[in-house]
């Protein structure tokens, strides 16, 4: 049973707003990075629609193992922009206490697990979380997002196989944005990514990740399958990394942009055009939504950047359930 038939104008509008707010935050953060306010960023420009679709279909009890390029998903999950920025600034309000690079979020309260830098390494954890749900017969599924590059990792292989062998409720979603830093997907692997499911005896499906309806259709079908206990499922969402890999990257070295902000194949523009053609929205309203998003983001950045850093001694905390003598001694000698 696909939810699309029942998709209301409000839902579409809110999906659109989420994508616009995410894009806007991306642009503002990249600027903040240039000004030295934020240390680093991995923009999700181009992947907003796919991520928003995932967010729309989640249930409250689902556990998300996202990756570092999941801004729109975080926002659609209702995680406040202020908390996102606190992490990126590494300030005193950051629940991670400033320990991780920007974009490496952990929001247990929101069932958003924890992001590491090593690509793919969260995927085996996702199988363990799914086993916990299964063992305790709890509601909910695990959704694990990752890039096309991640499909080459050892972690992907282990996690896909374990999920299938133990018949776990894991929905694997590959956000195939065409690139792993400078490596195009066709040099990452010869196969179509959704076909990698074959190797594990699970279904795989490709969706147009730049199209809201295609994404919602494919993902909801997969979620139905997973929720019903039939086993794990692999979705390949074909999308596109519109900008640089990160603020440290210079994509001109290796590619010419194929999709640019506001062009006809920009996924946000595509949704705009759909909404315009459906008469759901007009250009003035679009401008207003974008203006509001800019205002919102400017205000939150201004507010959050004023929060001071955590105390220096905090870097010696949380290594163990109780402090050990080694770190205590080192803390005394350093501070």
């Amino acid at each position: 049973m696909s939810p699309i038939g029942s998709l209301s104008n409000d839902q579409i509008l809110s999906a659109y707003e989420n994508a616009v707010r995410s894009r806007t935050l991306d642009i503002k953060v990249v600027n903040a990075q240039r000004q030295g306010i934020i240390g680093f960023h991995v923009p999700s420009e181009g992947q907003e629609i796919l991520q928003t679709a995932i967010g729309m279909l989640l249930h409250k009890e689902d556990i998300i193992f996202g990756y570092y390029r999941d801004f729109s998903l975080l926002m659609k999950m209702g995680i406040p922009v202020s908390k996102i920025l606190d992490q990126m600034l590494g300030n005193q309000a950051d629940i991670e206490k400033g320990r991780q690079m920007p974009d490496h979020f952990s929001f247990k309260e929101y069932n958003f697990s924890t992001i590491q830098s090593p690509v793919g390494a969260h995927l085996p954890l996702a199988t363990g979380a799914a086993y916990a749900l299964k063992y305790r017969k709890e509601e909910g599924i695990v959704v694990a997002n990752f890039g096309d590059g991640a499909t080459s990792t050892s972690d992907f292989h282990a996690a896909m196989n374990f999920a299938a062998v133990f018949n776990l409720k894991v929905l694997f979603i590959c956000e195939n944005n065409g690139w792993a830093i400078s490596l195009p997907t066709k040099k990452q692997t010869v196969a179509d990514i959704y076909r990698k499911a074959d190797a594990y005896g699970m279904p795989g499906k490709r969706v147009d990740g730049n199209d809201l309806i295609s994404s919602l259709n494919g993902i909801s079908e997969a979620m139905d399958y997973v929720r019903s206990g039939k086993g794990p499922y692999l979705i390949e969402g074909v999308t596109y990394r519109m900008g640089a890999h990160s603020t440290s990257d210079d994509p001109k070295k290796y590619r010419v942009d194929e999709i640019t902000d506001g062009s006809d194949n920009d996924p946000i523009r595509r949704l705009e055009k759909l909404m315009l053609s459906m008469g759901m929205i007009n250009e003035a309203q679009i401008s207003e939504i974008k203006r509001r998003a800019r205002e919102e983001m400017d205000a939150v950045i201004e507010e959050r950047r004023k929060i001071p850093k955590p105390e220096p001694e905090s870097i010696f905390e949380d290594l163990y359930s109780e402090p050990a003598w080694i770190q205590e001694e080192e803390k005394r000698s350093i501070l």
Partner: protein
Amino acid sequence: MTLKTMVQSLNQTLDVLMAENQNVILLGEDIGKNGGVFRVTEGLQNKYGEGRVLDTPLNELGIVGMGAGMAMYGLRPIVEIQFQDFIFPAFDQIVNQIAKIRYRTGNQFSVPLVIRTPYGGGVRGGLYHSQSGESYFVHTSGLKVVTPSNPYDAKGLLVSSFESGDPVIFLEPKRVYRSIKSEVPEELYRIEIGKAALLKEGSDVTVITYGSMVSTVVDTITKNRVNADVIDLRTLLPMDIDAIISSVKKTGRVVIVHEAPRTLGMGAEISALISERAMDYLLAPIIRVTGPDIPFPYIYEELYLPDERRIMDAISKVKNY
């Protein structure tokens, strides 16, 4: 109380932990019907079912990673890696994930995961069934590293490891699995993580060792009537620095014995800690008696392993210095 081998002690401990706590899940290769290649999990799948004793596919990364995910979400997994030599495919999960998750999430998540694995040589296992890799883990903050030397300690340390709330690398000296028996109470008891045992008391020299080498050291000291403090570290990370330093201050002479290769073996850290803290008490150089820096060969493993002759040579050297 009955006499038990280390294998029996571990098996009985796992049994009680599983009986007491529904959230205890075992996973590893061949641990189900087969009971593990060393039989530590024998009978447990039969008793607790396939949902609690999981035979996994052949991928250590998957085993550790899945165990970690379980631990983050409320289960209490105890993982078996069939031989410590085969833990390296999971090294990234260990170093970059489980050791860092509590820290990086600001204490939102923890990974109370015990990774049991047989280690050490002396069973004609050649390069890949003999390694003592404790250094790789002791250098990794965020982990705890524990190794019992006898069946009694095995139980008490496994219980404490299980309850510690942190990821623990639990190294089982496979040479000792069936070679020593001790009295092991049926009920659960604890041996504190981070506390060493003083197995013998003496004033001439401090001999520091752990795990697979403990019985060789004790036998050597007893047979040769050496007047020595013998310290069994039991926990390698964090080490019991107080036990080490107070003994060194008494004897002034130190010999460290382990089976792992010398270079950056545990002996290096112990020696450095002593130099920093008790230099002026030392009456002789700190000597390490260890495995050599070569892969563990199939033949001549008796040359690889520290033995009575090498231990006594070192003791004579520090005593006659």
